[in-house]
């Protein structure tokens, strides 16, 4: 197959090329041969002979006897062309469109005038329209936004009507802003906390949650929560053997049954006491003041198996939550707080 293809290419590049060049030269010579000139000119002009003259000024085209319309005055081998007039309805709508555009020019922003433009009598401006519609929307919602802004969390939570609104509005807000990390069901994912539990890094009271949404964690906000789990292994704060021991100990906290499997666990208690209690507490139940998680429960952000804990202790963790202060209003953040709290009670 490839031989045939190569052969074809070779032929077309040699013989075929010369053939085409010779053919086009022959055609050119034939075309410009002096004795052929008259014949070709006649051929070129034949169908235009009657047509290619300016129409006389007083030319009166014939009227077609069958339709009663004028003809264009041209004739091709005895065939005449009707000059059918444009239907009246087209002129009607053309005029209507023209009048509309004149009205539009007067009422709406339309014509450029050098360094500015005509603003139109209505003074319409897309930016003002969207600002007005946002204001209208806020006005429509004010019957319940006022209540949510001013009432306490407990009052809103006990008001069924308001909570219906929180669930509906909060769902949209959560989908748009929070769900990419925390999941559509708010149950989190690897590296992103589950919000439906009772375990909260920075406190689970409504005010705490509202504040966390406002300032974020390790964010660009000036009052941001700062949480830095050091890289005990990578930054050589602990030798590898000690890391393994403390990992085993931490693992045993949430897996009491597995203790006897790991002889290092007890040895890790001392290392834990020396390095970890400052943040995670003596009882390892964490500290919401510094965002240190409770290590004794089954809830893990970065995974609770031995390997994951080892990765965490070795390389540290600096989770990041953006600040929402400039992106979402106080009202939006309060709705989100209530929404998240509602998720928690709904699915413990």
């Amino acid at each position, binding site marked *: 197959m490839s031989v045939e293809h190569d052969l074809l290419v070779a032929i077309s590049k040699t013989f075929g090329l010369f053939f085409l060049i010779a053919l086009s030269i022959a055609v050119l010579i034939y075309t410009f041969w002096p004795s052929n000139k008259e014949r070709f000119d006649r051929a070129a002009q034949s169908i235009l002979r009657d047509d290619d003259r*300016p*129409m006389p000024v007083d030319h009166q085209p014939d009227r077609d006897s069958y339709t009663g319309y004028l003809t264009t005055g041209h004739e091709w081998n005895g065939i005449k062309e009707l000059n059918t007039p444009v239907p009246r309805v087209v002129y009607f709508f053309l005029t209507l469109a023209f009048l509309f555009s004149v009205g539009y020019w007067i009422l709406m922003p339309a*014509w*450029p005038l*050098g*360094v*500015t*433009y005509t*603003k139109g009598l209505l*003074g319409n*401006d*897309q*930016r*003002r*329209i*969207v*600002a007005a*519609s*946002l204001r209208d*929307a806020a006005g429509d919602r004010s019957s319940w936004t006022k209540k949510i802004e001013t009432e306490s969390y407990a009052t809103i939570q006990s008001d069924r009507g308001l909570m219906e609104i929180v669930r509906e509005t909060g769902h949209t807000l959560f989908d*748009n*802003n929070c*769900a*990419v*990390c925390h*999941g*559509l069901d708010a149950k989190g*994912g*690897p*590296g*992103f906390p589950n919000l439906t539990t009772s375990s909260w890094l920075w406190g689970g009271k409504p005010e705490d949650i509202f504040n966390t949404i406002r300032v974020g964690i390790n964010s*660009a906000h000036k009052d941001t929560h700062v949480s830095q789990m050091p890289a005990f292994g990578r930054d050589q704060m602990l030798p590898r053997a000690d890391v393994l021991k403390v990992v085993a100990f931490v693992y045993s906290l949430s897996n009491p049954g597995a203790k006897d499997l790991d002889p290092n666990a007890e040895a890790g208690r001392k290392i834990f006491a020396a390095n970890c209690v400052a943040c995670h507490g003596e009882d390892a139940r964490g500290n919401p003041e510094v965002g240190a998680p409770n290590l004794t429960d089954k809830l893990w952000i970065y995974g609770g198996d031995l390997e994951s804990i080892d990765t965490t202790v070795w390389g540290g963790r600096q*989770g*990041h*939550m*953006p600040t929402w202060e*400039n*992106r979402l209003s106080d009202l939006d953040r309060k709705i989100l707080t209530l929404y998240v709290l509602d998720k928690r009670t709904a699915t413990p």
Partner: protein
Amino acid sequence: MSIFGFHYRLERKAIGLVLGIIVVASIGGLVEIAPLFTIHQTVEDAPDMRLYTPLELAGRNIYIREGCYACHSQMIRTLRDEVDRYGPYSLAVESKYDHPMLWGSKRTGPDLARIGEKYSDQWHVAHLNNPRDVVPVSVMPAYGWLLTTELRTDDLPLHLKAQRAVGVPYTDDMIANAALDAYGQTNPDSPQAEGVTKRYGKATTVRAFDGQPNRLTEMDALVAYLQILGRLTDAAHTPIAEAGANK
């Protein structure tokens, strides 16, 4: 018949008809395009407008290379639902240094005009690596190789130069240090990091975007670009009522 007489005569002259078509067609162009260069309100003033750093520009090139613009727009229109969802509508000045502009015309994914700093770097890295890991319903392709591909920096001065040729005010100093600045922006502890903030302003984000301070990958560049979107100027965040065209 009489009002069409002129047209009948014109139709019979090929050159005359062509010239006539050009004149009529150019009226539309003149009325619609020329005023954009003279009317002041067309592009707003934004004295605080920053330049893309070399790293962000490289990320922008990756964004174009991977065809992100085919599914993501970068323009929030002046419509209530868009402002409600994405934030303040886009201003012309925000695309002042976008050559070519990436407004886009189709959204398979969401608009990205204000995505900058909305999500964390970790999220962007996880999401670009495999969108399904963080958003199970996503139909976006995975871009895993970005995390392992070294960013090409030797041609960055040329990219800056090309941008300068079309009106972006990069200085000679910026062009000469483009490759070093790209490295410095992803490595806050390196001596090169200082030059980035010196040349591009204090507000420049200097971080290990892909979580690996010692490596300069394409992921660094793309995440740096995504995190700057909508943050080159605060012009769009002035109260909407004041930002009307009739100042």
